[in-house]
């Protein structure tokens, strides 16, 4: 994140600064508390799950128990397959559509663009009843493609890439055309490479969104073979585990672990991606 080189004259100073720093930290601790609490519970034996003693022994047993109590390995594979499928299809479909909107003047382009943008408001997330029916008709209920299909054409992605492609200088496009390159070749050789940061940003946002998505996968899946992690976690923690919190929190951390670790390692990229993708 670029910082202003000069210090703003309105930055708090003296006692006010101490006060604001304290307040900011109190809020930060409050914000981190649920996660810290989960980490504490997951890494300690059950009898310390709600007792905070510094001398409490550390253990990985909760993770082992959780991992053995449900097919989390399979859920991981499913989630990775799901986010990959969605990401690749989104990249392909959105790139083509965005290119059309950015550089082709074709009949009905405005209406088509409006129809695309409609999805920003009427998103698949709320059309669960009809989409379920469609999946049933297609005979693909309880499969990973069924979870992915409603999301592969993303209005958000099309809009984001269109904005980016529009900023590519036309001269580059024309120069390539003079050299005899066709439209698709120009797209791949000129536009896509120039939009790399946007692809990264969009990719991170998309992967974290679909890694975390829950309601639609919950509805269309009902077997271990197709359930993603989020649904697996819910099935696991709601089927009378005798409410063993240490195991449930361990499972919770397993589910969010990869994304959380990726975020902590590549914070800048994450924050910048969400920023880029959001500001458009």
């Amino acid at each position: 994140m670029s910082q202003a080189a000069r210090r703003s004259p309105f930055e708090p100073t003296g006692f006010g600064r101490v006060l604001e720093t304290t307040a900011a930290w109190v809020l930060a601790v409050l914000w981190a508390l649920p996660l810290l609490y989960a980490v504490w519970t997951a890494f300690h034996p059950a009898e310390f799950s709600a007792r905070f003693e510094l001398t409490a022994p550390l253990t990985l047993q909760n993770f082992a128990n959780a991992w053995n109590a449900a097919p989390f390995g399979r859920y991981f594979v499913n989630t990775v397959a799901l986010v990959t499928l969605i990401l690749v299809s989104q990249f392909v479909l959105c790139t083509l559509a965005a290119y059309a909107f950015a550089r082709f003047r074709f009949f009905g382009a405005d209406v088509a663009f409006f129809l695309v943008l409609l999805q920003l408001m009427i998103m698949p997330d709320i059309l669960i009843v009809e989409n379920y029916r469609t999946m049933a008709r297609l005979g693909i209920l309880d499969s990973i493609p069924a979870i992915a299909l409603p999301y592969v054409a993303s209005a958000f992605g099309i809009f984001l890439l269109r904005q980016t492609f529009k900023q590519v200088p036309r001269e580059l496009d024309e120069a390539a055309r003079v050299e005899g390159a066709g439209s698709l070749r120009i797209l791949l050789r000129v536009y896509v490479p120039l939009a790399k940061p946007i692809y990264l940003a969009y990719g991170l946002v998309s992967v974290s969104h679909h890694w975390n998505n829950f309601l639609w996968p919950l509805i269309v899946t009902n077997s271990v073979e197709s359930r993603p992690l989020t649904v697996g976690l819910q099935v696991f923690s709601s089927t009378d585990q005798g409410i063993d919190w240490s195991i449930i929190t361990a499972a919770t951390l397993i589910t969010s672990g990869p994304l959380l670790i990726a975020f902590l390692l590549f914070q800048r990229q994450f924050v910048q991606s969400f920023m880029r993708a959001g500001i458009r």
Partner: protein
Amino acid sequence: MTRVNAHVAGWLLLLPAVAFLALFTHWPAVATLIDSFHSTPRGRRPAAFVGPDNYAVMIDDPVFWQSVSNNLWFAVGTIPVSIALAILMALWVNDRLAGRTWLRTAYFTPTVLPMIAVANIWLFFYTPQYGLLEQVTGLFGAPSHNWLGTPDTALACVIVVAIWKEAGFFMIFYLAALQQIPPSLAEAAALEGASRGYYLRRIVLPLLMPTTMFVLINAVINAFRMVDHIIVMTRGGPDNATSLLLFYIYEVGFKFWDTAYAAALTMVLVVVLGAVALAQYLFLERRTHYQ
């Protein structure tokens, strides 16, 4: 390239995306409208046209009205607080207080965690007797209270979770906006003898307006589609005290399998979101900063 070719090429490029959009967004939206005027097909009995019957049922359905009212309270409870907190967080992170990177991490982390996972953690947090909340209130001698199990407090509890999840996400948009304010503005204001409060109120906040509009739209949409934590924490209970519209649609459609009624309920949500879109288009579009 000839003009006819541009038409063909444009549509060919668009075709795959349009096909999927039509199949999974436009068609289901239209089908929802059609189905809402039919009965639910059961067994051998196919769906029959019933006119506005489903809507009549809806008007007489107290759970529907409670879900609407819950959803409005949920929106009123989450949106202003999370936006205000987001601005505060952004100002603090932007002011380079000690440990700003840590602050940013702490504020933003909830955004990348699955709602379903954090809902589990919060569930534990709120657990009567030995949840963390109870331990803290217990220190002050407060009597034990079943936070999620009491209709009076359950909705407030899920609102807190939503605020916690969203504020850090909104923060980054404000952070981006703050970083785009030229430092010379602050210097000029300081030369003119403006106080910090005056500077924040009269210069920073107005410059943040477009961001606030963008965040507001997102927050409103989220208020109507966030239900993961409801499914984990309360299942709409106790006594439907935390049933939100989308959650109720889910229950009616996939617990009671009354798809026609669920379609009518979905139409309400479609109309609400359509109204948000219209408002954005009519009042905000030309004043926002993107494009």
